[in-house]
Structures are given as C-alpha cells and as structure tokens.
C-alpha cells in the first residue's frame, strides 16, 4: 500500500499514548472519561472494554475496506462497533457482574464514543491491517492510561483507597467531591492544564535549541 510507505510501525503505536493522546490531546471520549472514573477498577474495566472494541473494529474495517462502499461506510462502521460492544457487554455481565453493575449504561454507550468511530474514519479505512492494529492499540492504551490516571486520582482522594484497598487508615477524611461529577471535571481540567504546560515547555525548548544551532553556525 503506497500510503503506508512513509509510516513507521513504532511511531503509529506510540503516537496515541502521548503525542496524540485521545483524551488529553484530542479531547475525545469525554462521556465515559468523566462518568465512570470514580474508581480505579471501573476506569480499568471501561478502558479494557474500549480497547477490545477499538482493536476489533479497526481490524475488521482495515481488512474489509475494499468491500465497504463509501456511501454507507459510517453505517457499516457503526454496525461493526455495536456488535463488538454487545459482545463486550455480555462478556462483562457474565464474568464481572459487580463491575458491570457499576458501569451500567456506559458499556452500551461505547458505541457512541467518537474516538472509536474517529479512528475508523481517519485511520483504519485508509491503511493496512498492521498499521491499523498498531494505531488502535496505541490509541486505546492512551485512553486506558487517561481513564486510569483520572480514576486512581479520584479514588485516592475521594475514597482514600486504590482498588478498594484503604491507603490512609481511619483518620483520613475522604474528599467526597472527588468521586462526585464535579471532581471529574476538576481533575480532568488540572490534567489538561499539565499536558498543555508540558507541550508548551517542550515547544519553547525546541525553539531555543534551533536558535542556538543557528547562532553557532
């Protein structure tokens, strides 16, 4: 595939984790991001389900892209995504009924996660299976990482525990607001601030390097 010539497998994988992180950089998938990250385990299971759906859909879309007519591609992507979501929904209900109960409606709502449809339209439908899988793996790991960092921060501060293991002993007064919806917005806002600050610092540093090189020539 000509279009894949300039791609590097490793780069396609890591870009989703940091440079193009779906949550912190692209700000996609906000609905599960804010709704289910009140504990680390919920965040991890949600991230795992999303990883399964994105990898599965990207594989099918990349493998069958020749047979997917352009006019109905979005409908077909949605059918593929919805099928994987239903599989994930029933599997979780059978294997982890407790967590499934807490995640509730947000598992079926993975269908509406624009990160997943976005990857099909922007990447999987234009590239080979190998790169599509790398892209899907990187993007979903970036998503898992984002959910997990938000979920663990909120659980530690809001409940004084991580994975339901108490961390601070009896005297700790939990910041209940952190596991309520406002806590999600506050934490996400602070993390986005941090990401943008790092990106700005990196850009300034690179400019300095370029300038220094130019002066030394």
């Amino acid at each position, binding site marked *: 595939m000509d279009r894949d010539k300039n791609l590097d497998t490793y780069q396609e994988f890591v870009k989703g984790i940091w440079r193009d992180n779906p949550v912190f950089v692209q700000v996609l998938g906000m609905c599960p991001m804010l709704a289910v990250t009140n504990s680390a385990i919920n965040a991890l299971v949600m991230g795992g389900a999303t990883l399964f759906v994105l990898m599965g859909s990207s594989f099918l879309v990349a493998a069958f892209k020749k047979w997917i007519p352009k*006019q*109905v591609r979005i409908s*077909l992507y949605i*059918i593929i995504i919805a*099928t994987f979501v239903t599989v994930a929904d*029933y*599997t979780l*209900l*059978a294997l982890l*009924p407790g967590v499934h109960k807490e995640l509730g409606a947000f598992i079926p709502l993975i269908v509406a996660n624009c990160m997943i449809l976005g990857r099909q339209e922007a990447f999987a439908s234009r590239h080979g299976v190998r790169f599509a899988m790398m892209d899907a793996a990187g993007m979903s790991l970036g998503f898992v990482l984002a959910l997990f960092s938000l979920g663990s921060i909120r659980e530690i501060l809001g409940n004084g525990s991580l994975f339901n293991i108490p961390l601070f002993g009896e005297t700790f007064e939990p910041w209940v607001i952190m596991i309520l919806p406002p806590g999600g917005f506050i934490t996400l806002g602070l993390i986005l601030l941090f990401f943008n600050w790092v990106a700005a610092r990196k850009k300034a540093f690179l400019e300095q390097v370029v300038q220094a090189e130019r002066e030394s020539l």
Partner: protein
Amino acid sequence: MNPQVELPVTNEPGSARLALSVALAGLISGIAIIGIYEATLPTITANKARLLREAVFKVLPGVSRMQQLGFVDGSLKPMGEDDEAVDEDLTLYGGYDTDGRFIGYAIPSDGPGFQDTISLLYGYLPGKGRVVGMEILDSRETPGLGDKIYKDAVFVANFSNLVADPEIVTVKKGTRSAPNEVDAITGATISSKAVVRIINEGQARWRDKLPAPGQEPPLPDPAETPAATAGSD
C-alpha cells in the same frame, strides 16, 4: 458543483449493492450477538441466582435452606422453577434451618430512591414482628453519599433488629430511641428514607397475606425440588 467532477458517479455501486452490504453486515452482526447471548446466558442466570441466594442467607441469620413462595388463590404456596404466572410483587422467599423448620421470610421490595429505583431484600420474622436484615440488590444512588445505604455498616446494622409494626420511622442520625426507629445517614437523608419507605411498603403489601405465625408452608421434600435447597450448586 462542476458536472465534470461528478462523472465518476456512474461507476459507483448502485443502491442494490449498498443495501445488500448493509443487510449482510446486519446479518453477520445479528448472528454474532445471538452467539454471545447464548454463550453467556447460563453464567449470567447462575450469577443472578447465586447473588439472590446469598442475599436471602444474609438477611435471615441462621437460615440454610430457602424456597420461593407465591401468593396464589389466597394462600402462600411453594413455587417451582417453571411457575412464572405469579406477579413478582406477590412472591417472597421462605427461609428454613437445616432440619427444615421455618425461620422467617426474605421479602423483595422496590421503590424510587434518590436517582433511580432501589430494589432490596429484607428478612422478616413474623413471630416477633421484627426485621432482622436488609440487603440492597440494585441501586444507582450517588457514589460516596447515597451508596452508603449498603456501604455504611452502621446504617445497615439499623435493620438487624428492628420492630416493623406498625411502621418503621427514619430519625436524624444519633437520635434513635425507639425499637422501630432508624438513624438516617448524614448527607443521604433521601436515600435512607427511601430504604425505610420501601420496607414499609413491603410490609403493607404482605401484612394481610402472610399466614398466622406457625402456619407457614413447610419446606417441600428436597428430593423433589433439589434446586430450591441450599448448597445445590
């Protein structure tokens, strides 16, 4: 738009092919969904039955066997696996000890909570007129506040020896003084009151239907209904 740009349209697939590809995808998707449904259904059903059995044993201390009972034709009758004609509001669970002696009822009840329906199971000893346990089966109360109705051991302990007649009353935390009063949870008053109201509604529904103490339906012969007894996993 320039008509010359649109020329390639003639080479594009017709409506029939588009419809066919969507129909085919739908068919494959349907088969996949039926497959996963059939594959997981036994586990899901078993999980639900196990959770219910655990809840019955929790709300009725000392119980080791249970039997679903339905209110049919004016009296309580044991229900088999296949009897589904009885309204769910008119079924409860009888708890028996290892010798098959009746101990108490585990009564399911539900009603609106703060955010969504709360469904719970409570243990009731008809001889003493007391509630001896309460377990939340399903709820979507606020994490950190309303979910204390099942996470806060102090609140749950309110229901371990509670006079249920004529009515259970919610009082402000720390002011419980009578045997029919429940200390509400600070910050989750609506959820606490909802739990008490749901139990009161369950009591009101069953008050005239339960047989006189001592007349409870006996445990059917376990040899005939093995699925109804404990430890039949």
